């Protein structure tokens, strides 16, 4: 996400991302240069006066090396999460960096749990993660709101006091208006809004005006058997001061200099403190069924296994499995048949839409937090906010079903309301679902899957609130 300054570049285990020495902010254009985890072919430089080079080039022109699918990644289908899990760190990093596939199961998007945990336990090698920045912002907002509540209460007391005086003094102050300082409240309101809009600027480095560094929580060694393996190299009491020094290369860019000086003065003897913590990874990269199917079938860079077998599933088996697991609780085994397919199933409808937008170059993510089915990002979540929120509307014109069975208007109003507050445009994506007859025999045809997808006709309708007072010019 946009605040991820420093996060992807600073993970000690998988520090393959090029980090620019000058700025703390990694160059996302380089890290995320590839939109797919597939390799491009670059012809060697042509040396015109060298006949060998020309022959080589001619040869390469007609018989280019087949090198696009250098790495085939592996994921495992999990019936518990009803998704595909990737655990190999190299695969996790690649899939995130090249096309923003999946989501860290314990993070908001990019897997950062390990980093967060190490920082939480005081590891000095790890930089700040986007989750921490969000948390700070939220803490700040909480403080602001508290302050506002306090001011409001003060004002109320003032009014009550004045009114009590008036009652006692009678005519003496009668007619004199009571002045209420509404400005204080409004100022706070503006500040709150300012916080939000600052957070909304994806390209801006985060300058927090209020130094609200997270205090490092005391180490809890309560649950060592449960995955936490703490191994502090220095004594914990020193670490609690919040060890940040100028020389520390991965010191978070956000720590205000003032705090650093303060630390240097008071704890100069202990600094620089270096602390290493070992934490067992609890997080995996989770691919949605649509992402997994796209990577396997369309791109061909992912193999998917199931529990207890290392043999990757055939795409047809995968389709069957995914159709069964696209509802809750999942459909029983052998309830889905590929050759006698019912096209009205959640997986194929969702996948048709997912594939549609992916193939046009959008990065497509689930949008449950914004009450939509998908979010569409241009280039990817580290570059821009999602511009569109997609609502999938299955349509049954070929089924001869009666009209006017759509969602209620208030349902749509609440969704457009939520999305306009975060400046997203709601997109109704109508999917005209084929009947079983329309797709009969698809599984015996060459490129039958593609023909099947083509039967799901798609039409996008963008929604915008229209206010008469603002469209007169």
């Amino acid at each position, binding site marked *: 996400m946009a605040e991820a300054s420093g996060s992807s570049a600073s993970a000690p285990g998988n520090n393959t991302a090029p980090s620019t020495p000058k700025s703390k902010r990694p160059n996302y254009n380089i890290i995320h240069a590839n939109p797919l985890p597939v390799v491009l072919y670059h012809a060697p430089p042509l040396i015109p006066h060298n006949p060998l080079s020309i022959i080589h080039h001619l040869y390469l022109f007609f018989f280019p090396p087949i090198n696009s699918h250098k790495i085939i990644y592996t994921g495992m289908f999990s019936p518990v999460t009803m998704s595909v899990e990737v655990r190999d760190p190299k695969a996790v990093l690649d899939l995130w960096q090249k096309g923003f596939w999946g989501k860290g199961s314990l993070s908001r998007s990019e897997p950062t749990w390990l980093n967060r945990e190490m920082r939480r336990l005081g590891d000095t090698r790890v930089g700040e993660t986007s989750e921490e920045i969000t948390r700070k912002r939220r803490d700040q907002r909480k403080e602001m709101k508290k302050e506002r509540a306090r001011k409001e209460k003060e004002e109320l007391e003032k009014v009550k006091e004045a009114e009590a005086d008036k009652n006692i003094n009678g005519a003496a102050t009668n007619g004199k208006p009571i002045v209420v300082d509404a400005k204080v409240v409004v100022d706070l309101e503006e500040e709150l809004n300012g916080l*939000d809009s600052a957070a909304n600027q994806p390209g801006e480095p985060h300058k927090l005006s209020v130094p609200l560094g997270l205090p490092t929580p005391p180490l809890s060694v309560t649950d060592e058997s449960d995955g936490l393996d703490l191994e502090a190299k220095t004594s914990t009491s020193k670490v609690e001061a919040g060890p940040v020094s100028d020389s520390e290369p991965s010191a978070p860019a956000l720590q205000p200099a003032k705090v650093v000086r303060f630390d240097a003065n008071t704890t100069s003897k202990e600094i620089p403190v270096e602390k290493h913590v070992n934490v067992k990874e609890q997080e995996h990269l989770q691919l949605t069924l649509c992402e997994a199917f796209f990577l396997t079938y369309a791109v061909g860079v992912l193999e998917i296994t199931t529990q207890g077998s290392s043999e990757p599933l055939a795409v047809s088996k995968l389709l069957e499995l995914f159709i069964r697991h696209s509802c809750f609780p999942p459909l029983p085994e052998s309830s889905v048949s590929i050759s006698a397919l019912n096209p009205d199933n959640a997986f194929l409808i969702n996948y048709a839409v997912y594939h549609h937008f992916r193939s046009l170059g959008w990065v497509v993510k689930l949008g449950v937090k914004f009450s939509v089915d998908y979010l569409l990002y241009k280039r990817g979540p580290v570059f821009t906010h999602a511009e569109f929120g997609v609502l999938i509307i299955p349509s049954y014109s070929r089924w001869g079903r009666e009209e006017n069975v759509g969602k209620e208007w208030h349902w749509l109003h609440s969704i457009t309301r939520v999305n306009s507050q975060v400046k997203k445009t709601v997109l109704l994506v109508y999917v*005209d679902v084929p009947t079983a007859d329309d797709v009969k025999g698809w599984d015996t045809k060459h490129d039958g899957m593609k023909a099947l997808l083509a039967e799901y006709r798609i039409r996008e*309708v963008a*929604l915008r609130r229209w206010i008469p007072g603002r469209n007169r010019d």
Partner: protein
Amino acid sequence: METDGVSGGLEDVDIDLSDETQDFRFLAALTKKGGSIPKRGEKDFEPDGTNLQSNSLDDSRNAMFEALAVERMHTGKNRVTATWHPSRGLAKVHTQRGVLFKSMGRADKFGTMWLLPEELIYMVERGSLECFYEDTPGVIDESIGINVPMSVQAVYAATLEFTGGLERYQVYANLRRSGYVVYRNPDGQYDELFKTVGYEYKPVDKSNQGWRVWGLVGIFGSLFTQTFQSGWTSARQGDPFRPMIPPGAYRTYAEMYTRLLVPRPPAPKRIEGDAHFNVTFHVWKPRPNFKKSAPGPPDFHVCVVSTKDTRLPSLLQVEGLFGGIPETEDSEKPKNMFMALKDGRRGVILAVVDYGVISFMKFSDSRFMDHKLDVDPPPKGAKGKAPARNFQAKGGQGKKR
């Protein structure tokens, strides 16, 4: 990066003052001499027991009563009268006076001005016109007609059904009060006079151009066979699950994305009209030189629906709605891709009336197929954000019609 729902940063364009409950002190302040408009302040959360709060509530309530108690009357000078003709469903204007007729009513070839029922109610309601029942022959003397004036209630009772329902009148009045010029969609009018219009309003039958893109299916197809394919893929001929991007040598990502495209035939077109989802009004922005004889193409097409008997339109209903609206010309297309996607090539405004509360929503025909994103990395040396270049995948297909 997402502000997870709680955001104060409402875009100016999304704030609609009419959403707020009316504070009638605003009105009182305007009508009283020297009054100033009170500033919008914080909303009260709950009764706090102060006189300050209860006094301002009282003030507001009294202001409302005062506003409602004002006597509404016609001024003698500008008195306009008309007669309601139930057989025709129109009102005949006796004498035209006032600025409203510049954008209301329509004159027949004899120069007689006729008003639609919604125009009539609107004018009666705002006190610009007095309406009479049609002359009924007198009981005693046949030659003396008795002119009985209609009350506002009577006008509503007699004419509302001719407007097509209360919701339509509510939307009409709302748009008029906001300053727009509103005429009925000439299609399906009961009176010949309002069927004829002086402008082109129907789409020139380039029928559903957007779907022409699919004519390019052939180009995609040929691309498939043309490009170098490895022996590995040819071994899998007849495979329904042949990967869309077979292993090979690709020089650009756009090349791969072209292979990911799924050509789709056009969605079914609706032929017959829909009872609810059709264009109700043609709407023009207020402009000083508006001529009702030659208004030019409307700025907006408005479809009035009620929450009582409609839900979110189906695909066929949406197709039907868009089918009746001309597309914007290429030259008028917004340059910015996001704007182009949000506005679409044509749009219709749905006025959803929920027991008197109107929400306007613009439905736009977006056509994402026409706007493929750039997928290849920006040129070397680019710092920070890549320049917002325009899509047009390197392959360049799928754009031309």
